[in-house]
């Protein structure tokens, strides 16, 4: 009886007693969800173009953020360092296409996945060799990102909105919109969708697979840089950031591996869901439910809707 009360009654009493905490929880979940969506977006871009699950997306986040911070530490102004980092990510994309992907065209997806695992180890080693393993502060103020806080008096309490979180939401939204327009309205975007639908057919109408892959990896690199800046500003830039990318797996299972709207909706469901579940029902499990909530949700989706909310249903005819 007490258990039923804890599940069905106590959380709602708490919401009624502390509505400001509930609003704060939703906001925190919304910001985390947008950031999860940003990581997931990097995976989606590459999966759409090549059918490869890019295991290296997490380390690309760390590598991009470390490059930015490392360049700035050499005395290069923040904005120039930012553009130089974008240049590094472009070179990385071209390099990956030339050295890793091109020799593996036509190989089984599992081999491409293994190649991205190899790439992860390479980037990890290269990052540690060049920048060292110590955590570094993100150059938040130097980049002009806001650091203040706005308090809203609400329901007899306070809801705090960190300006950095607001900036993260705005930047991520602009980024997602820009990518959506780029891939739906431009010639390259249409070519990408053609490649995603059928490699052979795309090649036969003169679309350069190599060029498309380099562009997509570059776009994923820029997404990784933005993700690294935002997560880095919330804590610091360290190799632990790579692990957060694992959350994107659950987001992708929810949203579908090929859908940009799916990445966003999946990110928000997991971001808000895990925060609300942790705060209001976490005590039933001794706390720490955030560690597994996303994966449990993903497991349920795998059972009932394996293609995700927006993914294409896989129909294989024999």
């Amino acid at each position, binding site marked *: 009886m007490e258990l039923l009360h804890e599940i069905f009654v106590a959380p709602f009493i708490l919401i009624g007693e502390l509505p400001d905490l509930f609003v704060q929880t939703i906001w925190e979940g919304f910001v985390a969800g947008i950031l999860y969506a940003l990581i997931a977006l990097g995976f989606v871009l590459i999966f759409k173009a090549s059918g490869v699950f890019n295991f290296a997306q997490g380390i690309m986040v760390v590598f991009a953020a470390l490059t930015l911070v490392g360049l700035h530490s050499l005395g290069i102004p923040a904005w120039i360092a930012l553009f130089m980092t974008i240049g590094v990510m472009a070179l990385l994309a071209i390099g990956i296409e030339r050295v890793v992907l091109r020799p593996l065209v036509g190989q089984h997806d599992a081999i491409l996945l293994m190649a991205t695992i190899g790439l992860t180890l390479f980037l990890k080693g290269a990052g540690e060799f060049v920048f060292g*393993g110590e955590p570094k502060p993100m150059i938040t103020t130097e980049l002009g990102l806001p650091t203040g806080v706005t308090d809203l008096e609400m329901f007899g309490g306070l809801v705090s909105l*960190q300006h950095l979180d607001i900036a993260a939401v705005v930047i991520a939204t602009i980024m997602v919109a820009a990518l959506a327009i780029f891939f739906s309205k431009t010639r390259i975007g249409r070519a990408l969708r053609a490649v995603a639908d059928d490699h052979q057919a795309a090649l036969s109408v003169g679309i350069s697979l190599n060029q498309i892959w380099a562009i997509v990896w570059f776009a994923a690199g820029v997404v990784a840089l933005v993700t690294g800046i935002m997560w880095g500003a919330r804590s610091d830039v360290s190799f632990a950031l790579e692990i957060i990318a694992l959350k994107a797996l659950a987001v992708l299972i929810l949203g579908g591996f090929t859908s940009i709207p799916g990445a966003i909706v999946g990110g928000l469901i997991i971001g808000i869901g895990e925060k609300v579940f942790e705060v209001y029902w976490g005590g039933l499990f001794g706390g720490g439910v955030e560690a597994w909530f996303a994966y449990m949700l993903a497991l349920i989706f795998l059972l009932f809707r394996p293609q995700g909310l927006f993914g294409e249903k896989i129909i294989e005819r024999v």
Partner: protein
Amino acid sequence: MRLKSLVLGVAATAIAVTGTLVTAHAEELYVPSLSYRTGPFAGGGIPFANGFADYLNMLNERDGGIGGVKIKVEECETGYNAQKGVECYEATKGKGALVYNPLSTGITLQLIPKAPVDQIPVLSMGYGLSAAGVGKSFPYTFTYPTGYWSQMSSILKYIDANGGLKGKKIGFIYLDAGYGREPIPLLDKLAPKLGFEWVGFPVAGKDMQNQGSQWLNVRKERPDWMIMWGWGAMNATAVKEAAKIRFPLDRFIGNWWAGAHADLDPVGAAGKGYLAANFSGVGADYPALQDVKKLVVDAGKSQTAPDKVGDVLYNRGLFNAVIVAEAIKAAQEKTGKKMITGADMRDGLELFDLSEVRLKELGLGGFTGPVKGSCADHEGGGSVFIQQWDGSDWKRTTDLIAPMTDVVRPLLEEAAAKYTSDKPGWKGQECG
């Protein structure tokens, strides 16, 4: 014929060189360092490994080693991973290893049963299994200068002295791993005894930099004080999140692994007021550290940047090396041998006596409080002090706070008995 001579010549040279190397190896005191310079916890692992190696290398440069024998420090990368730590142990134990310093509770827990079998002691300096401080039950494990339970009791004493403990709610945020969970049994026992309530906020390893939920829960629970058992990237994130929800940072106390420069440098002024326990001095204004700087760091024989000498975790690693060096010296004096074994080293650790006079002789006067071990006491009874982040550096704010030994020691003995009770072949020792 010429070819045969050449082959024989090369073989003979190889044998001679190998022989020389073996001899050189035999003439060194071999101290493996299970370090981690890579991975999510490298921020703590790097300065610690540097301080550890630099002090022992300084002894080589300044004194020709210990008792006239040079020390060889060999690092093995564990990545703070228990499995890799055990692999490092297995790969190095046959080289004449004198002692293991795993810098990981997870690795320590794996090595504790191996230590008496291989007769190589484990020195888990201020980490690992708290109950291992009971020498009668754990002859080969040491937690000098003090253990987690004693530290927690010192922190609780600090809280008691700053507004009282009775009737207060203590929030405990911890890395959800063996290390972070270690003091929970003590909190369970002490809460009713000392009249406080505690609530836990576990942080999973992969969510170290994603603690929004935990701090929403802190806001919900409204604890009077927060205590943190964090490590690596978890620490900076927690302090930032605490500042974000406006938790008073002068009521937020990290343990000695959550109060380093590596933790607060990325936070900067936003972390002003945050407190942490510590047992090793901060800064380089000690003669021993000046020797390290002159003979090792400035001489280009270190991986440390000169401005990092004196940082909290650098000094912690250096202190670990001091304990190792003092125990080697004690073992040499006891046995009369220059080259000692792991078993001799164990005896040396039991003879460990770092008095204030000895600290001064070592050029470390005031660096830490006195620590003395014995057959029964493998913890050393060390005290902690509290330091506070002023926005750019750590400042010591209290005298040494002794642990509640009268309360903690019986609980340690109870925990030690429980640990060994289901291990039929476990060998303790008799202490007079």
